[in-house]
């Protein structure tokens, strides 16, 4: 039996896992799998927010995670983050309110793999060495030259080859298929601030289960390990830079553990009642998610303004008719006519703004 098979088990029920009581659950809509705290049965899938989680057996590695980034942004910070997000949209959906977002917030830890392995092989690269050159700037003024020396930094590239027989430790590797999308939504994490796994740091958060097993994650792991090796050999060669690094090696005694990253998710319903999910980085509090303006509310505002414009025009018309009897009314009629025109123009503004805003948001999301 391989090391991989030995470590993987099917978890069916609530159990004490990694020093925490969790039970497996899955989302029938997005197929994501989580370990949720007991009593979280009715909650929506914390990532797609479409369907409630259902009990579901999970095939996973039971060994404890190795590293964790504890939440640095507490729940107390979230109201101001949500207020800022909501305030950025002028005519926002009715459901986009800080208190509603807060109520729906779920803390989650999502996984990366940490790979350790022994590497034995040969490498080659172009090593870059910093050096300085002197340049000049000459100024001619009042019939005299003034010289000023300038120092420029340049890189000298030289070939290097060699052998490596080393152990690489804790190379972060994607554990989710959608890791790029996830990183785009959460933004970067300060991985160097991680600490050893401690169940207390998890609290009541949901744990997302990797959907990329080590065998499938290996093609992503290899370039990351090679990047680590490139840094190592650059240091070995006393170089400051490297390019065209290539290595031919054996990667033995691999050891895969998890690295947990914190995030919050919440959602609001758009005009069509569709949930729009927001992701909040648990370290720096940056918030990402769709922010469409509400077309319904925009149309409503436009309608009210159009009705006001219509009323004002009608009053102006009546005023003009009355000028035959009482000429001074013409002044009031003209004033009402101008007001009506202003209201009519103002009625178009929300519709144009919403259309432009939503198009811009769509472009940013794409």
């Amino acid at each position, binding site marked *: 039996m391989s090391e*991989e098979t030995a470590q993987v088990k099917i978890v069916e029920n609530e159990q004490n896992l990694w020093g925490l009581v969790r039970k497996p659950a899955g989302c029938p809509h997005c197929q994501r799998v989580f370990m949720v705290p007991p009593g979280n049965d009715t909650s929506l899938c914390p990532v797609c927010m479409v369907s409630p989680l259902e009990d579901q057996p999970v095939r996973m590695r039971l060994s404890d995670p190795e590293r964790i980034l504890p939440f640095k942004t507490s729940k107390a910070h979230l109201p101001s983050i949500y207020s800022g997000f909501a305030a950025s949209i002028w005519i926002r959906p009715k459901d986009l309110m800080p208190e509603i977002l807060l109520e729906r917030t779920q803390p989650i830890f999502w996984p990366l793999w940490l790979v350790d392995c022994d590497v*034995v*092989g*040969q490498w080659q690269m172009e090593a870059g060495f910093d*050096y*300085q*050159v*002197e*340049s*000049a*700037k*000459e*100024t*001619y*003024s*009042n019939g005299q*030259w003034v*010289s000023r020396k300038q*120092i420029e930094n*340049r890189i000298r590239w*030289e*070939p*290097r*080859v*060699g*052998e*490596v*027989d*080393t*152990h690489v430790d804790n190379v972060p590797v994607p554990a989710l298929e959608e890791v790029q999308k996830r990183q785009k939504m959460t933004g970067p994490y300060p991985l160097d601030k991680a600490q050893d796994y401690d169940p207390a740091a998890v609290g009541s958060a949901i744990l997302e289960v990797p959907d990329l097993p*080590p*065998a499938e994650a*290996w*093609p992503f792991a*290899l370039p990351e390990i090679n990047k680590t090796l490139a840094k*190592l*050999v650059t*240091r*070995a*060669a*006393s170089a400051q830079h490297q390019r065209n690094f290539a290595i*031919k*090696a*054996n*990667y*033995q005694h*691999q050891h895969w553990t998890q690295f947990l990253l914190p995030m919050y998710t919440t959602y609001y319903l758009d005009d069509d009642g569709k949930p729009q999910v927001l992701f909040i980085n648990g370290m720096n509090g940056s918030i990402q998610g769709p922010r469409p303006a509400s077309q319904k509310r925009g149309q409503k505002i436009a309608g009210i303004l159009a009705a006001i414009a219509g009323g004002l025009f009608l009053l102006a018309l009546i005023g003009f008719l009355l000028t035959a009897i009482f000429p001074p009314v013409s002044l009031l009629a003209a004033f009402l006519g101008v007001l009506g025109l202003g209201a009519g123009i103002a009625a178009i503004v929300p519709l144009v703004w919403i259309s432009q805003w939503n198009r811009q948001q769509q472009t940013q999301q794409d």
Partner: protein
Amino acid sequence: MAQSNSQRTVWQVPEGFVRVESQVPDVIVFAPEPKAKQTDQATSYNCPNCGAAVAYDVPAGGIACEYCGYVAPVKTQQLGQSAQEFEFTLETLSQSDRGWGTERQMIHCDSCGGELTIPSGEISTTCPFCASNKVNLTVCHDETLRPRFLIPFKLTPEQIQRLTLDWLGKGWFHPDELAASTIAQHFNGIYLPFWTFDAKVDADWKAQVGYEKTERHYNAHEKRWETRTRIVWRWEDGHVQVSVDDNLITGSNPSQISHHILKGLHPFDLGDLVGYKPDFLAGWQAQAYQTTLTDAWEQGKTAIREQAKAACRQDIGSAHVRNFNMIADFSDESWRYILLPVYLTSYRYQDKVYQIMVNGQNGKVAGQKPVAWWKVWLVIAAMLAPGAILGLIGILTILIGGIGIIPFAIGIILFVIGLVFSIILLNKARQSEAK
């Protein structure tokens, strides 16, 4: 799971790579083997057939033995202006600033076992004990600052002698016997050090540019309309790019080699540059640089920025310019250290020593020539006399009859013209003797 992306194979260190120090114990590093220093020991030149001293022979284009006829061509590559150029790294500048010092170098002759000294800054010599020719580069400790390129001698001393005699015969104000003289016989072929500089200059200029404007105005005093030209000034600015290639600055000491005469040998065709080989120097003298890279670059920079200034002035579309200022931003500066072939000789004429230099590539001659001053003074007198005589006649006739104003004026004009030509002639004659 893919345990490895390839199996470990028997690995050969690439040819020309050597193991170097690694900062990480788990990693072994190999780097290209440093190029062997050109010569860390003096190279001796003796004939492999007869053992006599051999030297570089111009017609043969290689090392030749004048006793047994042995010839070995010099294996090198013609690089021309594509010869490698170097950057102004702080390391090189600091190394160059240290110069050669004044110590004489002690070298061991592997032909006869003798110990001989050569003056600081000289690259080649001949052993006084066995007469073997030697080329020694240990005078320069920094590899970068050793000569990498040179133009080999293209002309033989015999050809040079003919060219020199022709040159000596030219010019009427030199002694007649100079042309027929055989005084310039002993020519020393010497490779002189030169620096070449390349740079790009981005120059931004700003100046008040004047434009002539013709306008009419009424002269109340004369009671008539007149035209006058007025200059209208306005601030203008512009940008000019100047690219300088192979700006040549001599690297020899002006107290030893006259830079004034040396300038007269230009231009050298740098298309003939070849990679340095000590063979070219065997039997010939060669000097290492005396003017450091930093000092030479200062001279080069001065010339280049003046070129940039001239380009800016040309960019201004008017002859009227004031408050001109500019900023010349240098980039891609590079240098080359080369040796160029020059023949030197000196001769004595009437107890005075005169220097002659000949471009060893194209035969251009420059140097000092004695002046037959009596010829010069005679010609000056002849040029001034008509004006002076006519002027005197004019004065006399004015005094006598009052009609001499015209000859007096013509005399003054002729005298001034004569004076101008006399000064030009005098300068030319002085320059001819100047060192």
